[in-house]
């Protein structure tokens, strides 16, 4: 056997090993590069994000953490000048494959934004909106089943007790904190597997931030959660694993406790100590 073939075989077995090992991972990216026009936002991002835990993405502004998040549910593509290269595998399925339906990707991978964006309809209808998009409109669910769905979703985000008497009110009348919780709640009835959160607390005050973090811990274990945050303390409090990115590259990906105590790279240490960013 010549040298080339050996290397090829080694590669194959490595890939085979990897694919059997992916089962513990929810999101696997391989050499992900993303360009906005001529600007390269991500460089060879290779990450394995574990199932059912909370992973936080930290790094200074413009480091590519939001870009990474937006690539996972393919909303980046809406901008016509975006180019993506590399692979993203979610639960062992290539989301850029030929037979992938975008609606299904978005259904499985929910997203929460910086600014709460509830729809200008009632609280109840907001929770049921996703369901009504993804089900045949003719088949109406019985009323009590629908009520259960609404209650469960709102219970999970710890909003049920504050809004249960005003489910018919406009969602846009709620406080920002309640709106953000609602935006998380409305993802749940369509049973996503992954929740992506792009700085979900940056529009909230300290109390709201705490409340959202509390609900994140409640959701932990049922969903794979990836949270982008600017807030170092939040990453430390509210995540199991932490990824530090800088200038479009992944610098470090370790358990959160480890990163904040013994960062492996100088850049990471400098960042978490607040020397830049």
């Amino acid at each position, binding site marked *: 056997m010549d040298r080339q073939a050996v290397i090829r075989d080694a590669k194959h077995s490595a890939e085979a090993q990897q694919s059997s090992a992916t089962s513990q991972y929810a999101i696997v990216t391989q050499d992900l590069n993303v360009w906005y026009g001529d600007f390269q936002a991500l460089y060879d991002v290779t990450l394995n994000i574990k199932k059912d835990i909370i992973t936080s993405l930290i790094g200074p502004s413009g480091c590519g953490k939001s870009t990474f998040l937006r690539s996972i*549910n393919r909303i980046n593509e809406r901008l016509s000048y975006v180019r993506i290269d590399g692979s993203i595998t979610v639960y062992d399925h290539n989301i850029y494959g030929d037979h992938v339906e975008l609606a299904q990707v978005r*259904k499985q991978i*929910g997203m929460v934004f910086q600014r709460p*964006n*509830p729809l*200008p309809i009632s609280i109840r209808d907001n929770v049921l909106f996703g369901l009504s*998009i993804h089900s045949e409109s003719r088949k109406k669910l019985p009323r009590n089943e629908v009520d259960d769905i609404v209650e469960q979703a709102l219970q999970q985000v710890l909003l049920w007790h504050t809004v249960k008497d005003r489910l018919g009110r406009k969602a846009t009348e709620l406080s920002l904190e309640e709106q953000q919780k609602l935006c998380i709640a409305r993802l749940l009835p369509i049973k996503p597997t992954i929740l992506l959160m792009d700085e979900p607390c940056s529009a909230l005050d300290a109390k709201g931030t705490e409340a959202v973090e509390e609900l994140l811990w409640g959701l932990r274990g049922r969903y794979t959660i990836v949270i982008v945050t600017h807030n170092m303390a939040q990453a430390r409090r509210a995540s199991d694993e932490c990824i530090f990115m800088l200038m479009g590259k992944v610098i470090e990906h370790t358990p959160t406790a480890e990163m904040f105590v013994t960062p492996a790279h100088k850049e990471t240490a400098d960042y978490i100590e607040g020397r830049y960013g």
Partner: protein
Amino acid sequence: MFAASGLNSRNNRRQALIRILFMLMTGLLILPVLIILTTLLYKGGPAISFEFLFGNPTNGMTEGGIFPALVGTIWLVAVALLFSVPLGVAAAIYLSEFAAENWFTRAINLAIINLAGVPSIVHALFGVGAFVLFMDFGTSILAASLTLAIMTLPVVIVATRESLQAVPYAFREACWNMGATRWQTIRRVVLPNAVSGILTGVILEVSRTAGETAPIMFTGAAFFLPFLPESVFDQTMAMSLHLFVISTQVPGVPDELPFGVALVLIAMVLIMNSFSIALRIYLRVNKKW
């Protein structure tokens, strides 16, 4: 230390002067409206009666009522809306929600703006050529209404597009990110929030359409036709043309008759406009973001 300097008082005087000047100009603006309305009420008011509104013109249009013209105008406007609203709203939705921003859509937008600037008499001639002669509808309500529809399309499109674009982008994003298609987003979120603006645009357009004379003159409105139209292929009388005819073409019409017609026409327009304002207020109440 804080007393006015010479420059301050000069600036203040200048501002006071400008303010009064502009206020006078605003006053001048409403003067014509007031004069028109009071003249119409004063001179045309005595003509208004049940027989005037619901009777046929008699004695060479020098006596009697305006019922055929009233009904004719309603026909013309209704049929015109039947064409212009679906077409205009669909086009606006396409342009605002689906079309990519490129030279082609820019060209279409430019064409729409230019269409809005075409004089109504040119629309009239186009109507004669296209609908009366080429499509062989003859002079009929259909031909006249189609001409009116073409004329009103740009306004419907622009009003619709503006109210669509007034719906915050974040709502669309929220929908798309739950896997909604563009159409689901439009139907469930964008349109319900834009409908008040669209309706206002449409109703304002109705009031303008009701008063148009040139586009219907050669395409479907008749000089004198003392029966009601039975189908869209009939000719009809219309308020605006009737006013023109009895004011300029028929000798021996008593003074209060044209004023009465004008009063009814303006009342129709005002009623439509206040309806549109009321509707807008009603729909606004339910809208909050």
